[in-house]
């Protein structure tokens, strides 16, 4: 069975034009719903980015005893450097520690003088590859010779990890629910549009049109509406993102949420894909209801 391309193109174009109101309704529905989905997805990307940076800032300090020997601290340093979990380390000498101490308490000179350079503990500041590894690294060095104390913000890290995990899950859920709602809304709009044309479908059947012959122009219409709506949604998301990013460009906290153009583009591709699929497949299903022999 040959379906002529020029027939499909002409039929699709004419129907889009003749059913302008329904077409606009469908395109608008797709645009609004997918813009919400896109917004949620981008927000999630932003949280991902920010989380990555927060977690990158997590570190632990290994304080050596002030009287620890050079061999002892060399052993600790060598072991730290050999560990794959460790991203980088920084040695803070007694002098540097003393300077920090002086700086910290420069408003209370009495206190400043209470400690000499010799009494300051030298330390290693360790940044792990992943925030979760802080505890693992810390436990290992607690009982080493020459180690005075291992310090890390255990509870804060746990709270941060938990919070970001929940936030990410929630945003996923929101995006998913919005996607489902968008699909239903789009399907319903298409169904209404086709219901308005059931007479036309009945006539096509009467003159001997095969089901696919009837279905294909409807599918192309749905495809067009889906892509047009998704493109509009993409535009809205794009503009809002630029606007938001511009507005918060000087606020340190929010800058961490900045999503790259690649992120926005890939979200856009996803939106267009969803729009096209829901449009075409939705139309095919919607018209099938009126095709029963």
């Amino acid at each position, binding site marked *: 069975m040959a379906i002529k391309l020029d027939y499909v193109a002409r039929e699709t174009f004419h129907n889009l034009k003749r059913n302008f109101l329904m077409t606009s309704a469908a395109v608008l529905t797709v645009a609004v719903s997918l813009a919400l989905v896109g917004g949620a997805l981008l927000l999630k990307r932003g949280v991902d980015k920010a989380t990555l940076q927060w977690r990158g800032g997590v570190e632990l300090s290994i304080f050596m005893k002030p009287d620890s020997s050079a061999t002892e601290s060399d052993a600790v340093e060598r072991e730290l450097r050999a560990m794959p979990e460790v991203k980088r380390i920084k040695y803070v000498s007694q002098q540097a520690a003393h300077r920090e101490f002086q700086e910290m308490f420069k408003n209370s000179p009495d206190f400043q003088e209470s400690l000499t350079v010799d009494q300051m503990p030298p330390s290693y500041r360790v940044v792990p590859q992943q925030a979760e590894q802080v505890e693992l690294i810390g436990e290992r060095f607690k009982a080493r010779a020459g180690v005075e104390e291992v310090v890390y913000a255990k509870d804060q890290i746990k709270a941060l990890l938990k919070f970001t995990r929940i936030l990410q899950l929630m945003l996923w859920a929101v995006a998913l629910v919005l996607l489902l709602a968008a699909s239903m809304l789009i399907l319903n709009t298409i169904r209404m549009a086709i219901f308005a044309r059931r007479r036309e479908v009945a006539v096509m*059947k009467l*003159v001997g049109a095969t089901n696919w012959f009837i279905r294909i122009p409807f599918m192309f219409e749905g495809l067009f509406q889906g892509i047009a709506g998704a493109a509009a949604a993409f535009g809205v998301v794009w503009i809002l993102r630029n606007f938001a990013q511009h507005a918060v460009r000087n606020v340190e906290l929010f800058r961490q949420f900045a999503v790259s153009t690649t992120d926005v583009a890939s979200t856009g591709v996803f939106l267009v894909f969803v729009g096209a699929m829901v449009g075409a497949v939705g139309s095919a299903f919607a018209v099938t209801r009126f095709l029963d022999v």
Partner: protein
Amino acid sequence: MIRLENVTKAYKGNVVALRDVSADIQKGEFVFLVGASGSGKSTFIRLLLKEERPNSGRIWVAGKEIAHLSNWKVPYLRRNIGCVFQDFKLLPNKTVYENVAFALEVIGRPKHVVESQVPQILDLVGLAKKHDNLPNELSGGEQQRVSIARAFVNRPLILLADEPTGNLDPSTSEGIMRLLDRINRTGTTVVMATHDRSVVDAMRRRVIELDRGTLVRDQVRGVYGAYT
């Protein structure tokens, strides 16, 4: 061309539309299907199009037993049958020309065939000057002519007409009947369901009468109300 053998059709709730109906219609015949509203005329026609299935009995259309026809072949059955209805069933947003061309495009006829056949058939039904009008710009009689043109444009073996004059005044009906007669003379089998007494009496063709689903009369050169 059309054969029904002991066909019974009941709808839900035990409403019997046709009861044990048998009939045999030859190629080239012109048959009136008469009876009061609800006597089963429309069901008769819907069965031939395979829009409904009989509960029992067998039906042949154009040489094929249609119960054996798989669903995807139904469109091909319908290409052998032209249909005309009381309410015309034209597509309101297509022009006269497009409505008729549609029937050819749907069955995949090439462009040059469409372009030569459609003006020819519109000429035959007397609407050569109304190509670009929309259906709502035409009178009832003209709309029915368009629907006949659409039904006949691919030269079907059978033309089914369900109350084609039901919405038209007597003189317009006469024109429609002349057109159907002309189509019948080309060899097309015409089955027309009607309760328009004057039309049946004027034509003097075969009459099959249904009464509450039962075939009560099959007369070769009949009138509308011979025994009623």
